[in-house]
């Protein structure tokens, strides 16, 4: 176990705080050790720090970084027992060549299994497969009493559903058994369509998403007028061997080869390069270069994790950092969705490509974000004047139609907004009082949003 003191922030690099950072393996986390680490201002576990705001930092307290742990693949049951500190990157490098894929992949491979459970992450397949928590059979959780217990939804449903999506506030997940998806190849068959505006995008997604396992639209939020909401819609599934043959793709190569490239690493110390002019130009090129309609074969990285090819891309926003705003509104709230897209487009903020996705059913996590409806995600430079007012306005519009905000992205909102979006918050707090009566687990976000 190694202990240092340093500044931590989220991926958006916006509100740092200094904590005692402890690199530990699951075995180090005895009752005595946890008691000692929690004595100042509590403890939180941090994965790879990809949450945008402050859930994986704990100013003045302790932050545990968990060593990766084992990857034990069981092909017979199609499951993997995996250490919570293992990243999806490491996991994919292990399982893809053996013909398996993670049940849910977010837009980056650089999240840990523990983080995937704590945020109950979703991917482009949520409308079909639900969130990550829906594919976990069991996990091992170290609770505030120092006990390491195996949790399943059968024997302690409350603790299970408080932990899935619970932002690490019920204990430390050290290991999980996750059901995997069998794949024949490491490629995807992808249909790409250029869509001229928001209304036709919504139409296409509503009528056609069910035909694909994966679906997501990249929306240009700088475009306005008749081009408001112009987008590139990409939908696909894992390619079979027959698909590869049909497309004459990579014949002779190992169909399960997986070696994600890293093209470039952004150096530190840059100013914000994503000004409105730059973003507008980028969005224009990106929209124009997309095919009107095309079916092709793409790699896992190209389809799922394109930004992972640019190391430290968050540095492109310079020292002030950026934030990612993600909300979900019910399917019927199309007018609200349209009004938000219009408001962002009119606001003059340089929102880099936004992502629109349709969510399927809830997983059951008390603080899980996904709920049926449209979810829109947009990146904004944090230093932009007037940004706070815009976001407060968007918060209201989202809540007015019964929507909610994603805790793994949130960096700006209020306790009231979270409480309004999460009707099961009190249930969550009751479980916390049961398993953590003295408040061992704490994070900056939990203090900021009254999740304790």
């Amino acid at each position, binding site marked *: 176990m190694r202990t240092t003191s340093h500044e931590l922030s989220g991926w958006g690099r916006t*509100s740092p705080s200094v*904590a005692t950072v402890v690199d530990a393996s699951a075995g180090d986390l005895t009752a005595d050790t946890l008691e000692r680490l929690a004595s100042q201002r509590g403890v939180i576990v941090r994965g790879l720090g990809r949450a945008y*705001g402050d859930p994986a930092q704990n100013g*003045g307290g302790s932050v545990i970084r968990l060593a990766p742990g084992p990857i034990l693949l069981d092909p017979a049951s199609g499951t993997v027992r995996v250490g919570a500190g293992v990243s999806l990157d490491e996991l994919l490098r292990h399982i893809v060549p053996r013909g398996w894929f993670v049940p849910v992949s977010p837009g980056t491979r650089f999240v840990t299994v523990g983080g995937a459970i704590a945020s109950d992450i979703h991917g482009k397949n949520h409308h079909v497969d639900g969130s990550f928590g829906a594919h976990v059979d069991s996990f091992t959780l170290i609770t505030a009493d120092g006990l390491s217990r195996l949790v399943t939804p059968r024997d302690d449903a409350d603790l299970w559903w408080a932990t899935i999506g619970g932002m690490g506030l019920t204990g430390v997940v050290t290991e999980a058994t996750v059901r995997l998806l069998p794949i024949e190849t490491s490629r995807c068959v992808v249909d790409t369509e250029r869509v001229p505006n928001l209304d036709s995008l919504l139409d296409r997604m509503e009528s056609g998403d069910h035909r694909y396992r994966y679906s997501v639209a990249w929306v240009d939020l700088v475009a306005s007028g008749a081009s408001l909401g112009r987008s590139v819609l990409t939908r696909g599934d894992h390619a079979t061997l027959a698909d590869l043959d049909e497309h004459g793709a990579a014949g002779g190569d190992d169909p399960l080869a997986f070696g994600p490239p890293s093209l470039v690493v952004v150096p530190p110390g840059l100013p914000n390069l994503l000004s409105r002019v730059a973003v507008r130009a980028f969005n224009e090129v990106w929209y124009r270069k997309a095919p009107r309609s095309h079916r092709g074969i793409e790699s896992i990285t190209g389809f799922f994790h394109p930004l992972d090819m640019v190391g430290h891309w968050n540095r492109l926003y310079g020292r002030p950092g950026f934030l990612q705003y993600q909300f979900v509104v019910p399917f019927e709230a199309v007018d609200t969705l349209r009004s938000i897209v219009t408001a962002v487009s009119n606001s003059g903020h340089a929102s880099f490509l936004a992502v629109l996705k349709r969510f399927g059913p809830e997983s059951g996590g008390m603080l899980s974000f996904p709920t049926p409806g449209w979810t829109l995600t947009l990146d904004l430079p*944090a230093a932009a004047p007037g940004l*706070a007012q815009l976001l*407060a306005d968007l*918060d209201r519009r989202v809540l007015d139609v019964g929507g909610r905000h994603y805790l793994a992205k949130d960096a700006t909102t209020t306790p009231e907004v979270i409480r309004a979006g999460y009707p099961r918050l009190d249930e969550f707090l009751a479980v916390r009082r049961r398993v953590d009566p003295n408040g061992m687990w704490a994070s*900056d976000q939990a203090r*900021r949003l009254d999740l304790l």
Partner: protein
Amino acid sequence: MNNAVAQPQTVVVLGGTSDIGHAIVTELVSPVLRNVVLAVRRPDDVDVAALSFGDAEIVVVPFDAEVPSSHVGVIADIVERVGDIDVVIQAFGQLGSPGLVDPVEAATLAQVNYVGAVSSGLAVAGQLRRQGHGTLVVLSSVAGVRTRASNFVYGSTKAGQDAFATGLGHSLAGSGARVMTVRPGFVRSSMTTGMDEAPFSVDPVDVGAAVAGGLRRKRTVVWVPGILRVVMELLRFAPDAIWRRLDR
């Protein structure tokens, strides 16, 4: 905890009756601002009903800059009541009588403006260190950059407070806590009512806006107005005879 757009949830004003302190808090009002703590010498004299900072709850606590031994306790009490403190504004201070020469009055001025700033500043710094985040905003003055015959006692206390604040900021590097030193010129406030205005005079609202902007940009020093930074850098090198002539 400040959010990603530098909006604080809790603001503390040491010297909570200060016009400039109120103007800064007004600039920091947002939907996330929950608590405004006014630390004042005579809590009974504060008419809370007459004050409004958005939807924030206003808490008034007793604080006497002249009693250093109480300062750690005052900060602890505040934290006990409102939790983490995100922004603390050191806004108390006295100007002293015009042409002050009385040694006892001068000592009192030094006690409040300098000694009180040192002890309360360290008490705040201790708490910010413990919580791993937060900013102490110190209201210094250009009067301390180069002292003048007409208010050199005041100026010397501000010079001391300013040097303390910038040094404290260095000492806090790596702790998550920060210090922002604010150097306004002549501010038209209740403290300066009836005095002749100096060049580059500003209103409390200007100081408020400059401080809020400085907090957003994580500045360590803010001059109000900004041009004073250049003016004072030049005046520091003016020959004594000229410097005295400028001080009318």
